[in-house]
């Protein structure tokens, strides 16, 4: 059980500042996912935790111990690399054993541990093989086994699934979740894939340009995005963010003080139903459907609003609507409000909740 703490951690390469100043607490035993667009500093953060990069400023501690001057091999962390980084010069067994051997674990114990792990991840028949005789999925397992065998308190994973095909990726996702449950170790997982982040993480750290945009559980990240960036990053298609008057004067009148933008999830927009008139709290508006994507289970409409803004509407209807003008309905409760700085404006209903504002 190791909590990871980053305090005022900054990283620059020469004049190029990757991370200005990061304060981050990764709770012990959590499956924390660092997610964000490429270049947002998530990998750099992970590598600093691993000790592969030295922070320019600030301090990092793992399990209450400052690790700034601790070599990567002594931090009690194991890492799975995107390209697996399996030693091509060693057999599968030697690969898994390498860390133990360097840590002077006695030979018999080593053998036992390696075989135990190999059995767990299903590599037993491959132990004597060279890595280049393995498939992508098997190499992935070697990389995992190599990390697991050291029984680290912290697992660091840098986009470990991105080299696998879609089917295997899905499968490995579930395996990793199970692995996390079983080991109870702290997982720090880097990905740029929001689906991976949402489906695996118990805590998501959304980053952009070296800053944390939001850190929360997946459901909260989806339900209460702290700013426009977050609202658009999570969800497919992204949240519709339009000026507050785009849905008409009635909606604009409901806006809390300071609101400049409103956001509404595509799946929260409904088509007006003649058999059920709009109730208070619902607003109707005519939009023009200009395109349709049929994804099988769902239909995604692209529509133009009266003020010219484009929005997406996601429905699970079986029959596609024709293009052209149609009446859509939105519930005021489903609307997220953002101020001029694109920060979320807290709903008065949920008063008392402490909101940490992270300036973009």
């Amino acid at each position, binding site marked *: 059980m190791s909590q990871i703490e980053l305090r005022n951690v900054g990283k620059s390469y020469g004049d190029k500042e990757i991370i200005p100043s990061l304060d981050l607490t990764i709770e012990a035993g959590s499956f924390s996912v660092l997610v964000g667009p490429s270049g947002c500093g998530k990998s750099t953060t992970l590598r600093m935790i*691993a*000790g*592969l990069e030295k922070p320019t400023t600030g301090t990092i501690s793992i399990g209450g111990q400052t690790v700034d001057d601790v*070599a*990567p*091999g*002594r931090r009690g*962390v*194991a*890492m799975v*690399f*995107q*390209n697996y*980084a*399996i*030693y*091509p*010069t*060693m057999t599968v067994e030697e690969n898994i054993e*390498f*860390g133990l051997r*360097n*840590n002077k674990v006695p030979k018999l114990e080593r053998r036992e541990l390696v075989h135990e792990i190999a059995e767990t991840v299903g590599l037993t028949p491959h132990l004597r093989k060279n890595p*280049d005789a393995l498939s992508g999925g098997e190499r992935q397992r070697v990389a995992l086994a*190599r990390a697991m065998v*050291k029984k680290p308190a912290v697992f660091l994973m840098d986009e470990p699934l991105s080299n696998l095909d879609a089917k295997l990726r899905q499968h490995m996702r579930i395996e990793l979740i199970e692995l996390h449950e079983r080991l109870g170790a702290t997982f720090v997982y880097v990905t740029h894939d929001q689906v991976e982040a949402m489906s695996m993480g118990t805590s998501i750290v959304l980053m952009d340009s070296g800053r944390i945009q939001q850190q929360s559980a997946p459901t909260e990240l989806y339900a209460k995005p702290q700013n426009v960036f977050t609202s658009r990053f999570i969800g497919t298609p992204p949240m519709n963010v339009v000026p507050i008057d785009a849905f008409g004067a009635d909606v604009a009148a409901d806006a809390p003080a300071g609101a400049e933008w409103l956001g509404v999830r595509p799946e929260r927009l409904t088509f007006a139903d003649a058999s059920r008139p709009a109730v208070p709290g619902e607003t109707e508006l005519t939009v023009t459907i200009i395109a349709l994507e049929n994804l099988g289970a769902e239909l995604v409409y692209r529509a133009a609003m009266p003020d010219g803004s484009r929005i997406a509407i996601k429905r699970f209807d079986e029959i596609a609507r024709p293009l052209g003008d149609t009446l859509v309905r939105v519930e005021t409760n489903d609307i997220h409000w953002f101020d001029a700085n694109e920060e979320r404006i807290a709903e008065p209903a949920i008063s008392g909740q402490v909101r940490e504002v992270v300036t973009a």
Partner: protein
Amino acid sequence: MTTTIAPPAPPASAKNSRQSGDGNSPPSPPTLRGVTPRVGATLWKVVRVIARIVISLALVLVFAGPFYWMVLTAFQTASEALSIPPQFWVDSLRWDNFVAAFDRVNFGHFALNSAIVTGGTLLGQFLIIVPAAYAFARFQFKGRDVLFGVVLATMMIPGQLIFLPVFAMYAKMGLLNTHLSLILPFIASGFGIFLLRQTFMRVPDSLIEAARLDHASEFTIIRRIMLPLAKPTIVTIGLITFIGTWNNYFFPLVWTTTDAVRTLPVAIPRLEALDEIAPTIVMAGNMLLVVPILIVFLLARRHIISAFTYTGVK
């Protein structure tokens, strides 16, 4: 102008030939246009094959010819070797030329010197090149690039330019007529450091990082990961050094004053000086000089090819 006329023609003929199959129109005889290029192509192909064979044979003659002549002469008697017209084969394998070569100079002594100098150079080079190349490839330190430039620059200094100062230096240091004097200057090979550095640089960073996370020391990283991956390059450097040192004539000659540490290449020409009409014995001596190189080359061949076609790690 021509471009507007030319293009429509081929589709028309193509259409004709296709229609001829279904019987609707009489089969049109193959046009001159359709045939000539094909014959021309075949002819051209034949010419090319013949040219390739001729050139290959010429190259074989240029490279293997002298070698064959050496082997041939080494097994001939003196009269056979000097006969006119020359004789291109031998009736039986005769070893007495080799025995004579051994007897005429103190062959074993020189061969041992050659082995010591070559082995010492190889070992020394390995000990110097590997850490140097690893440091240049993997570490950031002040003055690294300047230092590497200096290492590269040493390749451009001709040995003939500095042999005299080095000789004077040896005399002062009391290193004259020692094996060390023939080994020391060659163990820090700029070329070897350069070639190995390039190989080390192609090893993916993540491999090294994974090893660091596995708590491997730099020495372990070199021994277990870098060296096995760089094996083809190391074998190649070793081979180049082996050939260069084994065949080196100039430095063993000018940096020594006695026969104490002189090597085979210095001894072989003496076979000539002892007896002006003994090309057979000289060639036998040459063969003895060349055979070790051939053996090493055959053993290392596979690695040399992969050293220059190495594309990195999957």
